[in-house]
Structure formats: C-alpha cells, structure tokens
C-alpha cells in the first residue's frame, strides 16, 4: 500500500471514529430508553400484565395514527420547554429542578389575561409575556440566593416548588376562582387561546411557540457571545473566570431564560389544551410536567434539537400510556417508572461501553461453556 493510500485510509478511519463518537450520545439515549422499557416490562410481568400487549397498545396509541401522533406532540409541547429550562441551567453548570414551580406560576399568570379583553393576536402575546415574566421572576430568587449566598439551587428550587404548589392552591380557591365552577380558575378567553392545529385533537399552535423558543435558545447558546460565556462557565468555571467571564451574570441569565421557558410551558398548557383552558385546584392538568422535562432534557442530551426529538418520545409515552391503560389495563403511572429508569440509565456515562463490556463478559461465559 502506498503512503498516500495509507494516509487516506487512516483519514477515513479517523473520520469513521469521529462519526461514531458523534453517534454515541444518540446511541446512549436509545440504549437508555431500551433499558427503561425493559425494566418496565419486567415490572409489568411481575404484576401479571402482558408487556407485549401493553407496549403494542402504547406505541400504537402514540404513533399509530394521526390522532395519536397529534396527542403525542401535544403532550410533548410543554415538555420541550421545561426540558429547555433544565438544559440551559445544566449548560451553565447548575441543576435547576424548579421547572415545576416556575411552570405553575406561569400557568397562573397566563390565566389572569381572562380579566381583560384585547384583540386576539395581542391577547395571546400579552398572555405569553405574563407567563414568561412570572416564570422568570419565580426562578430569579433561587438564582440570587445562589450567587449572593451560595445556597444550593437544588434545595432552593425544590422549596420554591412547594411554595408555588400551595400558592396555586390558594389562588385557585380564593382569587382566580371561576364563579361558576369553584374547583378551577377562570378560563383563558377565546381570544387568548392558541388555535388548534389538528381538528379533533388537543394539538395547538403552542407547538410552534415551543419550537420557536427552542430555536431561539439554540441561537443564544451557540451563536452569541453571551451564550458562549454561559457554556464556558458551565464547562469549566475556573477557566471561565480567568477568561474574564462573570459567572454570576451567566448563572442569573441561565435561570432567567430557564424560568421564561417554564413559564411559557405553563402558558402552553392553559392556552392550548382543550377543553378547559384553566388551572384546576388539584393542579391535575399541570403537575409533573416540570419533572418530566428533566428526563426529556437528559435523553435529548441537553441540546435543543435533541430535546425536541426526546419530547416527541416522552410525549408519546404519556399519550400512548393512556391508550395502554385503556386497552391493556396497565396504569398510566407505569410510564413514570419507565421514565425514572431511563434517567438512571442516562446517569451512567459511556453506557454503550458498559453494555459492550457486559455483552463481552456474557460471550466469554457462554463461549467457555460451549467449549467444554
């Protein structure tokens, strides 16, 4: 082989390797998803359900027809946003697990536009601004506690979640109460709702708001100096400080952007999900979306594009989970169990390598036996 050919060969090999390492994150997410579904199947088997029947119902229900796919996208819409909340802060080196609370105050703020009338398009915009401001305001206190006092954001955001939880109970029952139905807030008026995208489903134009927010976040993080500073401070705080980056500023900024995303998620739920367009007293229609967003963020590798894909997957789990509950009898809560396992699997770096190692060990054991 000539030197040229050898060089070309090695170039190809290195290109191949690079492509493979580029694929690894996606592969790991897929593998984590498989691990989650597998453990879920084992649990279902333990309780006497048929996992095959359950998953067939789930995926058929989630992606089998237009109605199912539209509901998967509808469930995925707020997940894109709460996942971005988590991801932006992870990129800045922090764990903001307060999307749940920021989402609740965002939803409540969006509902208040029902107290005045405006032309349709303007009403939507005002509601979105209300929700984003509320979400950002709710996230800024934990951020300030972190920068000024060094309070762990993990503790402060969870405390804020609980406070917002009770605040919502209070506001639904006493201030924003629907005069006719006391168990919910007033509904978002027709002029401030997202129109439905597919008739007969609950998929609304809120999806475009979520995707637009993801695109804007992508642009800010990867195509502006500020975004570069946020990511640099997250990757290596010490180096970033020597580079003249004000880490307090990047922390605050990432929390504000994240809070805006979570607030927007709350708005998307109350402005885009028929039939009620309101917040209920038990928070049944909004609770959990903030936590689910963290799973979406991790499987989406904290990247806006990855998050959109992962949100379609997790939205499908929730939408299909309802069909699974109906036809296979497996409670919808099983989906959360699977989600938890997926996140646990995502926590293991180089999951693929671990998987290959276990497989090679298996082969050795099996090979040893067959040789005897």
């Amino acid at each position, binding site marked *: 082989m000539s030197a040229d050919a050898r060089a070309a060969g090695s170039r190809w090999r290195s290109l191949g390797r690079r492509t493979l390492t580029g694929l690894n994150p996606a592969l790991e997410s897929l593998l984590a998803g498989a691990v989650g579904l597998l453990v879920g199947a084992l649990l279902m088997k333990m309780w006497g359900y048929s996992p095959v029947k359950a998953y067939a119902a789930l995926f058929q229900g989630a992606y089998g027809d237009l109605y199912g796919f539209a509901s998967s996208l509808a469930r995925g819409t707020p997940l894109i946003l709460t996942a971005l909340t988590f991801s932006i802060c992870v990129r800045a080196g922090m764990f903001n697990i307060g999307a749940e609370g920021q989402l609740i105050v965002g939803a409540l703020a969006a509902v208040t536009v029902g107290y005045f009338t405006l032309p349709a398009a303007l009403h939507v915009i005002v509601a979105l601004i209300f929700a984003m401001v509320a979400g950002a305001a709710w996230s800024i206190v934990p951020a300030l506690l972190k920068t000024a006092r060094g309070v762990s954001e993990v503790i402060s955001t969870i405390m804020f979640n609980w406070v917002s939880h009770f605040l919502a109970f209070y506001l639904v*029952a006493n201030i924003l109460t629907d005069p006719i139905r006391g168990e919910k807030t007033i509904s978002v008026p027709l002029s401030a709702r997202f129109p439905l995208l597919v008739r007969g489903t609950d998929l609304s134009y809120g999806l475009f708001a979520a995707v637009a927010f993801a695109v804007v976040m992508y642009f800010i993080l990867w195509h502006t100096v500020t975004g570069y500073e946020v990511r640099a401070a997250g990757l290596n705080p010490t180096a970033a400080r020597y580079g003249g980056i004000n880490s307090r500023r990047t922390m605050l900024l990432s929390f504000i952007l994240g809070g805006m995303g979570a607030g927007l998620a709350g708005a998307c739920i109350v402005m885009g999900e028929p039939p009620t367009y309101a917040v209920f007293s038990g928070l049944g229609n909004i609770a959990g979306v903030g936590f689910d967003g963290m799973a979406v963020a*991790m499987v989406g590798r904290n990247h806006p594009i990855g998050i959109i894909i992962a949100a379609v997957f997790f939205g499908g789990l929730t939408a299909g989970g309802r069909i699974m509950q109906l036809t296979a009898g497996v409670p919808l809560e099983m989906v*959360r169990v699977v*989600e938890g*396992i997926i996140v646990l699997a995502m926590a293991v770096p180089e999951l693929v390598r671990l998987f290959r190692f276990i497989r090679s060990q298996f082969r050795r054991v099996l090979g040893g036996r067959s040789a005897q």
Partner: protein
Amino acid sequence: MKYFWGIFFISLHAMVPLVLTAVGEIIGETAGLFNIGLEGILLTCAFMGVVGAKMGGPAAGLLIGMGIGGLIGLIFSIINTYWKGNQMITGIGVNLFALGFVAFGLIMLGSPGFQAVPASGRLAPIQTPVGSLSPIIFVALVVPFLAHWFLKRTRAGLILKAAGETPEAADVAGINVNLVRLLATTFGGVLAGLGGAYISVSWIGSVTKEISAGRGFIALATVVFSGLNPLLGLLGGFIFGFFESLATWIRNLPGSKAIPWQFIAMIPYVVTLLVVAGVVGRVRFPKALGEPYKRE
C-alpha cells in the same frame, strides 16, 4: 403548658425522618457521594413500609423500609462509584422512579392515592402522662451520637473522611475508595429507608403519593445546616421539625381561619430556605464531594 407539650411532641415526631435521613446523608457526603434521591427513598420506603406492615406487622414494615432504602442506596452508589455516574442525574432518576412507583403501587393495592396502615400494622406508641411517643424517636435521638462517635473517634470514620477529602491519597494508602463510598451511601439509604417507613408505619399511619412532602430535600438542607456534624444534624432536624409542627398546630387552632391554610403550609419550606441562606458560606464540604473517583 398543654400547648408546649403538644408542639414539643409533634416536633419530636416530625424530626425523626429528617434526622435519620440527614445523618445517613452526612455519612454518605463525608465519604464523597451527594445523594439528592433521598426524597425518592423516603417516598418509596413509606409505601413499602405499609406493604410490609400489612403482611407482617410493624417490625416487618420498618425492616422492609430499611431493606428497600439500602437497596436504592446500593444501586445509587454502584452507579456513582464503579460506573462513574453523575450523582445529580442519578438522584433525579431515583426521585422520578419513586413518584411513578408509589403511584403505581397504590393502584396495585386497590386504592389510588391513599392507603391506610391497618391497626395491627401500626407501631405501638409509648404512652406518657402528657402524650404518646413513637419508639423510633429514641432511635433518632441515639443515632446522631453514634454517628458522631463513629466519624470522630474511630479509624473507620477517618477512612470515610479520607475517601471524601482526598480519594487519591486514600487510594495510595491502600483504601478501596469505591467500596468505602458504596458502604457509606448504602448505609445512608438504610437510615433514610427507616425514616420513610417510620412516616407511614409509626407516625401518620397511612401513605399517599405526596407523603414525603419535600422532607428528603429538607434533610439535605439539614445536612447543609449541620456542616456534616451529626449532632448539629440532630439540632437542625429538630428545628425544621419544630416549624413543621408549628404549621400543623396553627392550622388546628380555632382562630386560624383568618390566615389561609395554604400560607401556613408554606412555613416549613420558607423557613428551610431562610435557614439555609443564613448558614451557608461558613460551611465547608469535602473536597471530592460529588466527583466520581477515577484512578489516573
């Protein structure tokens, strides 16, 4: 005086899960693992405690709680020692899993959302002239002292500290860093499991999807307050338990209708925030806390 004993006794009861969980986490964090999955352990074990108590009485409930807590702690620590996982993400995974598992399990027991412990499965309280006390309170009072003695006075305690402060040096000195961390965090899981099972089997007598009510994170705040000193962990647990009982107490006062109950229910969380904001800065944590140990 009646009020004093009332609040004092509720505080003692509210303190138990916080103290047990916090002391377990102090041991784990001393060895270098940061477990934010405590909330999930408390919730899962509160549920599994009820399952155990229904099958074999209160002792079985508490033991199953400890066993499951230890199992979750073991899984958490395998991922974060030998597999070099991310501790934050693992903790979030544990919490998500617990939310789903308990909701699922409650449906499987035939009562979505709520499950009471039968009278035969409830741990009998100790009767005193001024009220009844759970026996686990005494466990929670003794464990911090034992942990303090263990961390400050024994060789094993020093080894734990070495694994958390300078894992490289510990490794060179022949200490199996990963094993030490694994044992410490598994033990922390056992204590949190006892705290979780206590909530349902001994204290409240029932389990719901939200029974842990942020106590895992308040326990983390207690750890911050304690600066990894188990005795201060006991004090911190009592303080947070006091504010929790204060909230319960105010809500039961005849004249409390003037303040919406939702604001009273916020008290423990707001106090936790204020206390943590007040004490951090002076607290120093192990150098290698949260970092997986990789041999060069």
